[in-house]
């Protein structure tokens, strides 16, 4: 690629590298957005899309590499303010409006230059004009609070706010899954507006799991994988199929394909009936299998796991012979009890089994903890050390032991290997397999393809529901990618 900056390069990222701990999110990425073009950015979980976007919006700095604005090196001084001043706007997947404020008031927050007497009237004008322009006939009253708007209308306001101008001119808008809550008509209106904006010399970056949308809106498509740009071509040279192929790896050998099991005679240990429009696929899990939950991050996998967990009750009276245990992925939010020792963190779920007449049997508790410390090799001098004295990977092992030490037949795992080093991962994989062979069931949400490919059966999620069920030899990256990305908006 020609890295010599030209004046048409509105924003360029050169050789960007970024690591978070052991995870290498960006491994030398070159990315350019020129004036008057729309760039589509696609890739599966962990490909580095989000990191690249955060880099461009000034939310994080690269470990190595440069950021150029209009051909000028701006790496040193780059940040939120510089990006915004330069005309860069971003619409995030997680909506960023204040729910208790009105549409107008939210516009005022986005535009510092609207101030002084009469700000309300001017802000109203700015946002109403933009809404009319992008979504004609939108029917949004700008005087209502965000909380009282439907999710689709919130997203429309979010998009209109990003494109709206008061003082600084908007030159580049990054749209991260902009149509996730919009119906086909609204999505069409947005894409038409994007083309118009680009035609007038603006720039847009679109990230979407709907590949048809990318292909029709973008001039150029950039495909990322494993922190690198693996393909970059004009949109006209891609088809949906070739795009899916580009996101996948270059045919990697799998160690062994697990044969599909015959489960016709078995009774499921856990089941959830399907809801929503056809094709509705229900969730079932049989004894001794590892069920993978795949798809792009945030498409309903965690919610399904927590639903499966809470369905079992236990908020008032501790469950006797509980059916499920939960292994958290977001350790700090869902897992760790930060004031406690490793030992107390490890035995929490097992506690009812270690209790007699309401009193915890300390000797039995210590014995169980020692046994699991040896089995999963928690690296510590003393189990009485605080949990936070452990490295992230070892904390995660403790959370695994918390669930595995119990007698529960089903273990739910919410992408537990996030930010865990490869050595620890291999150790845990081996334990999972041996536990499954003994008859335990694992329901495993993972954003990593390698992990999904170790499962016996896989459900692929998209937009909050199961859209595909894969088993045996069908569990392959290409199939998972194809199901994770929709061809057209529903």
């Amino acid at each position, binding site marked *: 690629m020609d890295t010599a900056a030209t004046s048409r390069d509105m924003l360029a990222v050169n050789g960007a590298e970024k690591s978070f701990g052991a995870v290498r999110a960006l491994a030398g990425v070159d990315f350019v957005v020129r004036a008057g073009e729309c760039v589509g950015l696609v890739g599966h979980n962990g490909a580095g899309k989000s990191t690249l976007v955060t880099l461009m919006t000034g939310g994080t700095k690269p470990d190595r590499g440069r950021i150029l604005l209009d051909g000028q090196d701006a790496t040193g001084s780059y940040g939120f303010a510089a990006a915004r001043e330069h005309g860069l706007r971003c619409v995030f997947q997680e909506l960023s409006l204040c729910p208790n404020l009105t549409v107008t008031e939210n516009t005022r927050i986005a535009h510092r230059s609207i101030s002084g007497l009469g700000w309300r009237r001017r802000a109203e004008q700015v946002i109403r004009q933009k809404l009319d322009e992008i979504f004609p006939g939108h029917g949004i009253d700008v005087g209502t609070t965000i909380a009282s708007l439907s999710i689709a209308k919130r997203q429309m306001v979010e998009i209109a706010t990003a494109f709206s101008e008061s003082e600084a001119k908007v030159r580049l808008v990054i749209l991260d899954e902009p149509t996730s809550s919009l119906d086909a008509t609204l999505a069409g209106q947005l894409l038409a507006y994007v083309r118009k904006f680009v035609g007038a010399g603006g720039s847009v970056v679109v990230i979407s799991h709907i590949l048809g949308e990318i292909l029709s809106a973008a001039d150029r498509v950039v495909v990322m994988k494993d922190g690198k740009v693996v393909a970059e071509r004009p949109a006209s040279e891609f088809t949906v199929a070739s795009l899916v192929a580009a996101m996948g790896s270059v045919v990697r050998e799998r160690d062994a394909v697990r044969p599909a099991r015959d489960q016709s005679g078995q009774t499921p240990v856990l089941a959830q009936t399907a809801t929503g429009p056809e094709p509705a696929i229900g969730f079932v899990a049989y004894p001794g299998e590892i069920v993978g939950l795949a798809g792009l991050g945030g498409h309903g996998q965690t919610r399904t796991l927590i639903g499966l967990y809470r369905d079992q009750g236990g908020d008032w009276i501790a*469950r006797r012979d509980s059916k499920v245990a939960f292994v*958290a992925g977001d350790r700090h939010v869902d897992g760790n*009890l930060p004031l406690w020792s490793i030992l107390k963190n490890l035995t929490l779920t097992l506690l009812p089994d270690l209790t007699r007449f309401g009193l915890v049997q300390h000797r039995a508790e210590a014995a169980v903890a020692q046994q699991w410390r040896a089995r999963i090799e928690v690296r510590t001098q003393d189990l009485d050390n605080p949990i936070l004295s452990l490295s992230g990977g070892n904390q995660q092992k403790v959370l695994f032991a918390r669930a595995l030490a119990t007698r529960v037949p089903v273990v739910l795992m919410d992408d537990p290997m996030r930010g865990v080093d490869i050595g620890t991962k291999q150790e845990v994989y081996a334990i999972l397999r041996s536990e499954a062979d003994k008859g335990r069931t694992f329901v495993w949400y993972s954003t990593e393809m390698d992990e999904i490919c170790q499962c016996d059966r896989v459900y692929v999620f998209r937009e909050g529901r199961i859209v595909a069920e894969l088993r045996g030899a069908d569990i392959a990256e290409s199939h998972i990618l194809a199901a994770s990305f929709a061809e057209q908006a529903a």
Partner: protein
Amino acid sequence: MRTLAAKPWFWSFVAAFGVWLATILFTGGASTIGVSQAALTFAAFSIIVGLGQMFVITLGPGNVDLSIPSTMTLAGTVALKVMETNDGLVLLGLILAVLVGLCIGVVNYGLIKLLRIPPIIATLSSSFIIQSTAIWYNRGIRIKPPATLIQFATGTTLGIPNVALVALLISVVIWVLLEKGIYGRRVSAIGQNMRAARLAGVPVDGTRFATYVLCAVLASLAGLLLSCFSGGAALNMGTEYLLSSIAVVVIGGTAVAGGSANVPGIWGGSLFLFLVVSMLNTYGASAGVRLLLTGIIIIGVILAASRRPLA
């Protein structure tokens, strides 16, 4: 010594001992027994209510029981009125006091859970209802306790006030619950991270419910004891325990943010709180100065104690 100083309750005892020494040295040692007995007696009431408040505060940010004073008043009033100075009805009075506590605990958690009201507001508003009930039930008459109960509450055994012995007995039970029981483990887990506790199988609602009930029952027992000790149930008798139930928990080194509690600190905090007031009385400080200094000293102890590293 280092490990002792690292205990969260250490500073409350240092402070209590210091104030005790300053008081008896001022009187040349003549008041040693008197001051000590008075301290144990008066501290006993704040220890009993403080133990309940300790569990509630340990449930995590936002959890506090503000209905303790009115619960004490209502339990004392109901029990004394039913007993009608009749020695034969002592057991009935005791059972009634516990029942009053049970009901208040149920109502408090009902408000918190069903109506989704923050605990501070829920217990504050229920305290108005409880206080009004006590006023309506009592009609302003000061009811006398049965003679045996007066004797017990004001008496001593082997030189130690009986109320302090009751507080000790309750403290031992609470200590076992907290340090050895699954219940204490669960309260601490909820206080550190409620979401993580729930996902680890802790029955969050059941545990929180039990905690608010326990706190109300302890307040009821303290109310009964206090009304017997002071010769009758008065409508304002619980007032000072609103602040002191919280203060002794904090001074005693229980984490205000929840998740970590200890029983000895409640004793240190309660003794300290009473001794400060009695020391300033001995020095002849006026009421205004007394309150001012009490406030400053409490802040000082909390500052000293909060330097400790996280346990």
